[in-house]
């Protein structure tokens, strides 16, 4: 009896093998790359059903594992994408990987963006730098042919330090051309050849002043950006339940056991990574 249950028990620590099938250089400094991966065993898709906002533990065998948000959308079949900034041991090893390299992926983990609450509403995306990665999953979902009409107006405000630091430029170009998307792209200060807006995201958000009525705001970016975006949204009249963000913490297991990613009693890997401002207000400021 006991042995049967153990054999059936899925081992959450064993990653599925996945092959890198595409690598896109995102930034001019080449410190951000997007990796497209496909599971070596196609049956892995049966247990890997994800929604925007979730993440996976990505392993480079020999270097270890790191939690990375899934930047592709479940509406895109047959592959996953991870946009990775080269900062630590695992991400550096990943940056040395080539097409064809087999890596490990386990997940999906964490909660999702509140898609059900967003249906029928306007959606305002506010991103900064690599923070566009988790938002891109939701943007792609919302703008997909299957789901676009479930949502009202879509506005995207995205900023980076310089034009060379903007990620997903190919997506920005596509989104910018659509007449059902209002896209504002900003860089911190003027540059030769840049005819778009300049400034910091919170300040531009204030200028653009989106109407909070029937709108859910979703923001992700560097902590300093989020810190200044939240009060701007509040001043604009967004209620704390309608301001959504996604957090990062150092993680190991991804499944609430290893004990390090908690903020108060909430584990970012299980209760998050997506939180509303209302939830954050009830949590200790320890992130």
């Amino acid at each position: 009896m006991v042995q049967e249950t153990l054999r059936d028990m899925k081992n959450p620590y064993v990653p599925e093998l996945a092959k890198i099938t595409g690598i896109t250089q995102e930034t001019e400094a080449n410190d951000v790359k997007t990796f497209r991966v496909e599971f070596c065993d196609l049956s892995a898709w049966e247990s890997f059903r994800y929604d925007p906002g979730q993440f996976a533990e990505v392993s480079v065998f020999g270097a270890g594992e790191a939690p990375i948000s899934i930047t592709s959308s479940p509406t895109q079949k047959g592959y996953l994408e991870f946009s990775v900034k080269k900062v630590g041991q695992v991400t550096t090893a990943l940056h040395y990987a080539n097409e064809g390299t087999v890596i490990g992926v386990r997940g999906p983990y964490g909660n999702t963006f509140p898609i059900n609450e967003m249906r029928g509403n306007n959606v305002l995306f506010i991103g900064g730098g690599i923070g566009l990665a988790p938002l891109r999953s939701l943007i792609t979902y919302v703008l997909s042919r299957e789901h676009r009409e479930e949502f009202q107006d879509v506005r995207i405000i995205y900023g980076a330090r310089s034009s060379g630091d903007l990620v997903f430029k190919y997506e920005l170009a596509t989104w910018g051309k659509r007449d059902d998307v209002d896209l504002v792209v900003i860089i911190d200060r003027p540059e030769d050849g840049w005819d778009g807006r300049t400034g910091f995201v919170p300040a531009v958000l204030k200028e653009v002043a989106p109407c909070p009525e029937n709108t859910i705001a979703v923001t992700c970016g560097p902590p300093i950006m989020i810190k200044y975006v939240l009060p701007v949204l509040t001043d604009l009249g967004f209620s704390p339940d309608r301001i959504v963000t996604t957090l990062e913490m150092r993680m190991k297991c991804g499944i609430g056991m290893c004990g390090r990613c908690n903020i108060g009693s909430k584990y970012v890997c299980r209760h998050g990574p997506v939180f509303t401002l209302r939830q954050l207000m009830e949590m200790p400021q320890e992130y």
Partner: protein
Amino acid sequence: MLKMAKTDLDAFVDALVKASYVVLGPIQEGEATKFGVVGGEEIKIPRLTTRPLKELFFPQDESLLSFDRSGTPDASVDTSGVLASDGISPRVALGVRPCDARALVLLDNVFASDDYRDPYYTLRREKTVIITFACPLPGVACFCESTGGGPYDETGSDILFVEVAGSYLVKAVSEKGKGLLQEVFPPCILHEADDEDIQAAAEARARGELPANAGVPIEAAAAILGHVDAFGDSAWEEVYKKCLGCAVCTYLCPTCHCFDIGDEVTGASGERIRNWDSCMFPLFTLHASGHNPRPSRKERFRQRVMHKFNYFVENNDCMACVGCGRCVENCPVNLDIRQVLTTFARRELA
């Protein structure tokens, strides 16, 4: 209720070994005592092992899987060596104290929840029968009663031994325990206890429970720590100051469960190893970016206390402390969690 002569303990172990059980009990390792394989030699049951019982289920380091990159670019992952269900024989852990047994039930909340089950822990749990020895005389650092347990607590035990004048009274607590007793033991070792024995056990229990109730006001402390202003309370500025951040409290804690996972490589192959980790270490929460949400010993000490007496309670309806006193006895600077709790119990938060 059954009864066994104390002098038959070694015969009891032999019978288990003969029935193909791996018997784990207190063993000496250097200056410390811990749980390890016993049998053949006389067993000594210390008041409390230096190292906690948890390591029989959640060892300090273990391989989660092995991988091979020699087929580059194709890698392969193998868990057969570590997860083979016959890799762990049926085991009996004996000489366990009630605090350590109760700690396993708390750890089950973490490693065997409804959502995710840790197969390494769960496998060992399912394969192990816990034989607990009630504490005849709790130590000076013990405060199990204050945490809801007690020197005669049966929580987490399959069989409970109570020492009474040269004998053990043997009580099957769980079906698993009952099964073991029926399966293994000849009547020459175990026989029925009489009313006098049972009366004597009750008296021993009444004597033992008194010293273990150190009167630590845990409920009051937990209530304060659950207050919305507790996290920012100025008392944290003082209580952590002696702490060196050595983490011995968390390593020896029977309920602490934090771990790290890392790869160790030899040539083209390697293993993914899980190690105990501790919230007392700065690297524990350090982001790759350099940001650390718990940058100083103050935040880390607060995390340890809040996790045990507030966060764990919120998530699992029980506190993550069994009052074994190991953190009290082994702290190099005598930072006493009982005093910390007393400090908070006396705080008045508006």
